[in-house]
């Protein structure tokens, strides 16, 4: 067979593989949007669940997920950005630095349910936070660290070395240079990383199973030591644990969760491409 024909066929196969990857993604999103749209109403988003969660809204789950995400952000951002600054600006290539990188790769690879066990052992039992927003946020924060650290480190490293030399030549100390020049330049990249990490946390179920998640609560959480319902756990509950659940409510919940996560994704993409185009170096 003619080798140029082989190439044509081969490229067509590769394109086909890419289609096989992409089409199901569109199918998943399309199905959930099509079947969930009908459930979305002001009541669905703003009311408490009624009749054994088979009617009413999902407000406590939405509020719970937002609270957990904020909690995760508060705990994860300072540690992750500090860690990234260390790796990008201070660390030299020693075995200790390598150990840190290994630790980050491993943190990224630890199964989500194992984070759940760890959160149960450390935060819920040992530190006696109980099943609470505090325990869940801290568990999710540790899980989010590797994502934020790697993206933030990349953003810091992308700032040209001249910025550092100029800062130093003007008599600035290392920290003054980082705070006044490098961090502001890397900020869009860091924010992108933070959003990517948080959207992962917002969609996670396994780490919060034993650390925060409540099957059903008739009220909103009042303190950080309260349990809360969350969107992903609520979707799990109403699709596997409650028989006779109206599919529309299931798909509606899935749509709200998917919408939240995908809109964060879009925001991250926009920030990244906007600043990439505007950047002058």
């Amino acid at each position, binding site marked *: 067979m003619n080798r140029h024909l082989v190439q044509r066929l081969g490229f067509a196969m590769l*394109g086909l593989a890419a289609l096989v990857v992409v089409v199901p993604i569109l199918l998943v999103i399309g199905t959930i949007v099509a079947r969930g749209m009908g459930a979305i109403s002001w009541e669905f988003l703003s009311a408490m669940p009624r009749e054994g969660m088979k009617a009413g809204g999902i407000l406590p789950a939405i509020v719970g997920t937002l609270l957990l995400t904020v909690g995760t952000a508060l705990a994860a951002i*300072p540690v992750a950005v*500090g*860690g990234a600054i260390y790796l990008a600006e201070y660390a030299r290539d020693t075995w200790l630095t390598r150990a840190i990188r290994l630790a980050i790769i491993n943190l990224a690879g630890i199964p989500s349910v*194992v984070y759940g066990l760890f959160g149960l052992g450390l935060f819920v039992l040992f530190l006696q936070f109980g099943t609470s927003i505090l325990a869940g946020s801290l568990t999710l924060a540790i899980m989010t660290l590797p994502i934020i650290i790697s993206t933030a480190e990349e953003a810091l490293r992308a700032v040209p070395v001249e910025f550092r030399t100029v800062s130093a030549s003007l008599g600035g*100390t290392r920290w003054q240079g980082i705070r006044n020049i490098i961090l502001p330049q890397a900020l869009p990249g860091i924010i992108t990383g933070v959003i990517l990490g948080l959207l992962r946390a917002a969609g996670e179920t396994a780490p919060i199973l034993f650390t925060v998640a409540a099957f059903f609560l008739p009220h909103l959480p009042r303190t950080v030591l309260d349990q809360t319902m969350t969107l992903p756990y609520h979707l799990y509950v109403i699709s596997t644990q409650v028989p006779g659940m109206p599919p529309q409510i299931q798909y509606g919940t899935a749509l709200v969760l*998917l919408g939240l*996560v995908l809109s964060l994704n879009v925001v991250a993409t926009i920030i990244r491409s906007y600043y990439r185009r505007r950047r002058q170096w």
Partner: protein
Amino acid sequence: MDRLGRVRWTEFAVETLIRVLGFSTIGFVALIFLFLLQQGLPTFFEIPLGNLFGTRWYPTFDLFGTLPLVLGSAMVTILAMAIALPLGVATAVFVREVAPDWAREILKPMIEVLAGIPSVVLGFFGMTVIAPLVRESLGAPTGLTAFTGALILAYMALPTLISVAEDALDAVPKSYRDAGLAMGATQWQTIWQVVVPAARSGIVTAVMLSMGRAIGETMAVMMVTGNAARMPLSLDSLFRPVRTMTATIAAEMGEVAQGSTHYHALFGIGIILFLLTFIINLTASSTIFKKRHRGGLR
């Protein structure tokens, strides 16, 4: 304190803080392992080894055989990788070597979107859409099978697989491609006989990292595999319910009494999972570090 003194002091304080934060990740890995050990080690004293490595997991009858769970995880993961590997490598090659710009502009964000879809949403989709399809096409009593789980898992492994493999292809110097083409090879021949072999170690890393993700995936797997803890010994057990290690922990931890043998056993499974993913990631990252030292003009 004079102004210079203050600057020096701030400098020192900040640097110390940043150092501590930098090292904190090591501390977290250690802490996670420590707490798994603290809660899980008693398993190995409370349950005789013969029981622990037995073939039956029925905690209500004090049977804690982890073998069906380990094999369940292994079967679902291997099948998922068998689906994901050709698809992922082909897509990475397509995106990096062949695709026109407009196709790349669509593909890359789509793959990022896939990475962002929560696993519980994919599990829900698998339960309500894929499982009925599997059931009808097989004529089986249930669509919640190892195969269904592997299918969903393959797509969850794809984003990692594709992006790491693409980076590996990207790291192959352009001169390699030019040399291939200059020898009279077609682009297709150059890709498979020069570029992909040169990126081999990176592609292996991609496979290992995504396999680590697949073993650890919990919610989607729990929702679509049917969760029957039986030994998957024959080929047709692919189309029967199966139960993984992760699903066992997630499903049972809520119901066990704290400090009971069953509770410790679930943490014991957590230790196995931790060590398994730790080894996989360690092996995968050793090739990452090697790659950094490779020369070549770009």
